[in-house]
């Protein structure tokens, strides 16, 4: 993983913390060498644990399939797993489907979560408390029990085997958390900004769209990241609702490679690596906002 490109230190405080920035506890520069070593050692160990499983899949994908279960780090390095995957399987179709579904989920999810979060943050209206609780409660009812009823709803709406069906389902997973978080984030934006918008004669929608949204970038970035990851990695609904190579998403498609009745390590590992790439890109894009966005959201959640 080439992740050494230094991200802009927006979220973390600049090294020379000045008084304006509520930054790190100072005086840490005076750490003893032993303490420094201990800290680095901890971080290195933690990073290795965090990265290793994924790295192992990457290494395995570069070995010929017949050596997939060996434990050498490198063995006859080859790209044949990748070429086979792209040539012989409908991987690219699944990939495209997943991209469309995750992309739509992200766009709609961010939009819906933002408007909902804003409404809940700024206005007092009948049903608000109920709504907040509902958002929490939707996370409590287990997916497992919902699959068959949602399947039937989608069948009734003619959305089975269509991207729209999965997008709508994923919105129900992603939006509650995102709306909660956006509410928290909007709470941290001073209300004077809204009031100035009103003074200028903007409607509540105009205020929201022109003034508040541009300030909410970190929150939107986290929301986008969360929605994307949710839709990109979901398995249960994806494999229940979609059938046929031209409709499957990655989560469903990959079950063809490794299931209870057989394992094709070659394509599976190569596919896993390729799948991680878009997620990593979204992550890179969002990560400098992640800490700010999350904390603001979670603090007031």
């Amino acid at each position: 993983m080439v992740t050494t490109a230094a991200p802009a230190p927006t979220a973390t405080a600049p090294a020379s913390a000045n008084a304006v920035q509520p930054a790190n506890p100072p005086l840490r520069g005076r750490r003893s060498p032993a303490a420094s070593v201990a800290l680095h050692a901890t971080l290195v160990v933690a990073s290795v644990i965090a990265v290793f499983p994924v790295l192992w899949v990457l290494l395995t994908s570069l070995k010929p399939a017949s050596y997939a279960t060996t434990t050498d780090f490198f063995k006859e390095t080859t790209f044949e797993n990748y070429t086979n995957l792209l040539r012989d399987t409908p991987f690219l179709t699944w990939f495209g489907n997943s991209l469309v579904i995750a992309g739509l989920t992200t766009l709609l999810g961010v939009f819906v979560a933002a408007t909902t979060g804003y409404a809940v943050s700024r206005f007092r209206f009948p049903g608000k408390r109920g709504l907040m609780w509902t958002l929490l409660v939707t996370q409590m009812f287990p997916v497992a029990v919902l699959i068959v009823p949602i399947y039937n709803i989608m069948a009734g709406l003619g959305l089975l085997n269509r991207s729209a069906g999965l997008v709508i389902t994923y919105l129900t997973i992603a939006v509650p958390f995102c709306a909660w978080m956006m509410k928290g984030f909007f709470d941290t934006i001073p209300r004077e900004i809204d009031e100035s918008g009103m003074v200028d004669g903007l409607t509540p929608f105009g205020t929201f769209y022109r003034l508040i949204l541009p300030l909410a970038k970190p929150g939107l970035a986290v929301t986008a990241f969360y929605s994307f990851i949710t839709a990109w990695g979901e398995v249960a609904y994806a494999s229940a609702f979609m059938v046929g190579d031209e409709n499957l998403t990655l989560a469903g498609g990959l079950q063809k490679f490794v299931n209870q009745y057989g394992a094709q390590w070659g394509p599976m590992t190569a596919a896993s690596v390729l799948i991680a790439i878009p997620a990593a890109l979204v992550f890179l894009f969002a990560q400098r906002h992640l800490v700010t966005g999350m904390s603001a959201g979670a603090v007031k959640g």
Partner: protein
Amino acid sequence: MRRGITATALAAILALAATACGGDGESGNGGGKNGELSGTVTWWDTSTVGSEDKVFKKLAEGFTALHPKVKVNYVNVPFGDAQNKFKNAAQSGSGAPDVIRSEVAWTPEFADLGYLAPLDGTAALKDEKDFLPQAAASTKYDDKTYAVPQVIDSMGIFYNKKIFKEAGVQVPGTVAELKTVSKKIKDKTGKTGMYLRGDDAYWFLSFLYGEGGNLVDATSRTVTVDNAAGAKAMTVVKDLVDSGAAKTDATDGWENMQASFKDGEVAMIINGPWAVSDTYGGVQFKDKANLGIAPVPAGSVAQGAPQGGHNLAVYAGSKNLDASYAFTEYMTSAASQAEVAEQLSLLPTRTSVYDKPGVADNEIVGFFKPVVDKAIERPWIPETGSLFAPLVTEYTKVLTGQTTPDKGVGATGDAYRKLLKGWK
């Protein structure tokens, strides 16, 4: 119980209605008014991706050569998902295929739920007498035929001839011999004798049959899994694992079994014809002659492996019944079966196919045919497919030492009685 009967009766009535509709189409066909089939037939195939699916896809699409106006939509659904996916789709009335490759135990269940179109008197059934009787048995439910047998299978011991030679042992004929053979292999070569799948109860059945047991007895409506033979069989497999004669896993059983056999870490596995092509892919079997296949070892009472296989069934809600019937007939015809047997070594369900050149001299088919003839049929009741879920839980628990063989089969029996209301 009562409700079960009424639901079944209802299903039968509705199914009759479906046949009536189909019948109309038939007569239209026969009349030659507009005999040409058209439209799309969607087929859900469950064969193994990577090896079997290509052959079946090509075969299925060959249907268009006979009926140019019919488009065949081949969809491969992983075997592990297919039952659930079909159930989801079939009950909701949308998204179901026209034809499904149904495992033998699923067929009576789907039929009982009203999802399948009865095929008696339709174009789907041709030369019925040609089918092996045990293959045809699983397609019948409630005196009607709901599917057409496509392939049949059973299980045997796959063994690594090289390791056997090194250890100087012969293929074990009984479970007792299996233990001594395993020990000798361990002593001489350091390899483990056998890999026994611990995460799928289908692999337990031949040991159960070997002790004279069975899951249920449908004629006397009795649950038999928890009788003395059942408990004995559980003890036998537990002993195989404990004594080191066999090793097992509670997860990833298929992968571990195939990998350790293909890499030559174990000398024997129990498996069926569906595993042959995969096994040949292993390092140890680059020389195909190194793979030996023999009947499963006998227990203290009997010898036998379960009979399995796949049928093709037509969804009762299909919008294109006529073409679906014709497609089913085409896929199960002697010519199609011969091609499948030749290319994939899967066993035909038609007696006549076994005599065809290319099939008659196929070694794998030749080995499994007598095994299939002696294989033990499961009772083809709607619940047959449901019997595995409770059994596999207890089977794994026994093997991992979470419960005793006696308690294990006891709990399985209790679950069965809950499932089969009114059984002893």
